[in-house]
């Protein structure tokens, strides 16, 4: 699972008011090369929760992203490369996602998060 997906996912348990962001418990991180695509990053930047991305990439062991970002920074290739690496190249292979409110764990196996809810959580 990439951090792009982590940035979109929220806990869906009944009664949870703010299930975003899910905390990451790291088991194993894999890096896969992705070609730089400035158009996609620029399109996504407006939708990203940047703070959450910075936090998540730190948990995954990548601390090069600047703490603050502005749309003007999208012109610099250096920043785009860092964003590309954090957003698309870091994969959480094994581990878990934890709901911030209830502490419920969603296990991640082979890079696939199991977001299935139990009957009483729907």
């Amino acid at each position, binding site marked *: 699972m990439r951090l792009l997906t982590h940035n979109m996912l929220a806990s869906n348990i009944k009664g949870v008011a703010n299930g975003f962001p899910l905390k990451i418990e790291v088991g194993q991180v894999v890096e896969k090369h992705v070609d730089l695509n400035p158009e996609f990053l620029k399109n996504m930047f407006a939708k990203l929760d940047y703070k959450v991305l910075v936090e998540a990439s730190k948990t995954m062991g990548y601390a090069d992203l600047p703490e603050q970002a502005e749309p003007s920074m999208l012109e610099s290739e250096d920043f785009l490369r860092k964003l590309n690496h954090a957003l698309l190249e870091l994969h959480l292979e094994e581990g878990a996602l934890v709901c911030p409110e209830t502490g419920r764990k969603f296990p991640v196996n082979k*890079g696939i*998060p199991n977001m299935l809810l139990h009957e009483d959580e729907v």
Partner: protein
Amino acid sequence: MASRPELQAPPEVFYNDDEARKYTSSSRIIEIQAQLSERALELLALPNDGVPKLLLDIGCGSGLSGETLTENGHQWIGLDISPSMLDVALERDSEGDLILGDMGQGLGIRPGVIDGAISISAVQWLCNADKSCHEPRKRLKAFFDSLYRSLARGARAVFQVYPENLAQRELILGYAMRAGFAGGVVVDFPHSTKRRKEYLVLTCGPPSLSSATPKAKGEDEESCSDDESSDDEGNQTVSISDRHRPRKKQKLNKKVKGREWVLKKKEQMRRKGNVVPQDTKYTARKRKARF
């Protein structure tokens, strides 16, 4: 065999390792899935500005539909309930991210971030109650409400569905409308039983010019019932048989099917979506006597 998969078992049970294997080995399934997703992407009508979008594939299965999205340069997130199918997707090295989840429990996705959603042959599963805690109406509502939230304003969602009957289609469409979607059903090749495919084309937001439902393939302007009635009138000409001709010849003449009949049949085949040769001056022309 002809029975619908929805009636046999819940999706996470039906799509077991054996069934999932078919999605890598059967070239027919692969081809059909690719065609369906190609058409769904066409109906999605994404702006043609070369900017890759973030799309959602609901019921992505083995990632066959996602491959079409990747080929067109988009990033995607796939959701499926069957672990076996997702394993196959991993084997196929699908580019998108995969999530094991149940669409009937709602999509746990942040509001307004997705640029479009497709789903191939999946939404009709929501109409089944596979567990005692399942209520199709609640599940449909949860699905469409959460989808509406997660889509950006003006984004589209295209679902290819196989509704079991009219009531099921109404049910699905009804809940989509209640969630706030505008749109309707596009039926490709409505006259053919095999090639007939239904697509739910939904737009996030109030109805507008841009949310008008696109035109279906293989559909005629004039309704077919009009066509046939005019043909019948043509056939109703009063014929006076030549009583001086021998009996045998009289019978023969009656059976010969003329150019009109051939043209009518070809038109019928065309409406079904079959490949039919052009109409030319040679169509249904009689051979010379010396042949």
